[in-house]
């Protein structure tokens, strides 16, 4: 099957750079599958899981807390705020973060709408992290 180059980078390191068959990205407006030859796109990501398919099977699942992705016909670059392989996600850590995010959201009542949105996005990302960690 045809492949394309998938690159996943976080500010701290380059996590993945190899040819894959398909990647499913948690785009801001819904899950998005990327196959080779996809139309050029720039999308924002919400907190979720990137699933990588190679040889007809999902070979890698990585949790991202948000970020951006640039898709071209032969390449897909994901700029993640933070990325962890699902297997390494700790449930306790995720729950602690969720609590933190919930507190931040509760405290953000008087902030500007933009700030509230940012806090809300963090909260949702933390929720996804917990559910992913539970399932893993």
């Amino acid at each position, binding site marked *: 099957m045809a492949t394309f180059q998938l*690159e996943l*980078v*976080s*500010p*701290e*390191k*380059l996590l993945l750079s190899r040819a894959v068959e398909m990647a499913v990205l948690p*785009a*801001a*407006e819904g899950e998005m599958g990327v196959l080779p030859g996809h*139309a*050029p*796109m*720039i*999308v*924002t990501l919400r907190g979720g899981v990137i699933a990588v398919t190679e040889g007809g099977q999902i070979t890698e699942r990585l949790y991202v807390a948000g970020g*951006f992705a*640039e898709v071209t016909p032969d390449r897909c*670059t994901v*700029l993640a*705020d*933070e990325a962890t392989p699902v297997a390494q996600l700790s449930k306790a850590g995720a729950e602690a973060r969720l609590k933190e995010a919930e507190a931040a959201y509760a405290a953000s009542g008087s902030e500007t709408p933009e700030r509230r949105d940012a806090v809300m996005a963090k909260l949702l990302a933390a929720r996804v992290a917990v559910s992913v960690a539970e399932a893993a």
Partner: protein
Amino acid sequence: MASLKALRARITSVKSTRKITQAMKMVAAAKLRRAQLAAEAARPYAERMERMLASLGASVAGSPDAPKMLVGTGSDKVHLLVVVTGDRGLAGAFNTNVSRFARTKIRELEAEGKTVKVLSVGRKGATFLKREFGSRIVGEISFQGKKRVDFGDAQAVATRVTEMLEAGEFDVCTLVYNRFRSVISQVPSAQQMIPAMLPATSATAAPTGPQALYEYEPSEEEILATLLPQNLAIQMYRAILENAAGFFGSQMTAMDNATRNAGEMINKLTLNYNRTRQANITRELIEIISGAEAV
């Protein structure tokens, strides 16, 4: 001439100083390697971010409602300098160099009649600049006590700058930091962050180029609104990492010099000690002999 006892005490003291500087050099060398790796690891992200920003910025820059962070507020009256320095000393001229550079910059801007505000990241720069520009300092951030500065810390600084921009507290933001050229050479440099300096490619690329074909989800403006603060954070992160690497490089060199100087000093003192000891023996011998002759 100093007494033998005093000389002995000095030799011991310089020897223990040498031990300390030698240990600090080793520690700095080990930390330098880690800091360099971290700085290198951040590079791919920054490069790709730049590429994305170039394609986005080119398509939005022309429109009248382009975000302030990209095109600026339209004036350049108030300048914000973000000065990144080390938190600790004992690193040669590392902190002084960048602080001096910032000082020249502030003076230049004020001579042009601009208002200057300073946000200091790192303890050493704050102490230096406070003496002369105490009233211009709007904030101090320090990572002291932190083992490793991560992206979240840089993001916090960037958020602060963004908030200040939104509140209209400045027009132009410049980052002043020590660029890491090599282990022995760090260059104080200034980099304009707001309005964002787009990479040169975007200026030359024709609007019909491949970059114009992108689809955006959600809209270009919305993506840009999140991408720009993120870009600010990554620039800040890079500056902080380069600062850390430069700091340890500078500290290593400084401690290497200190160790060598201590060694030289020990040699000199030992020579002096031996000469004094021999002079004493000779003097005593002369005293005994001349005493015996007198009898």
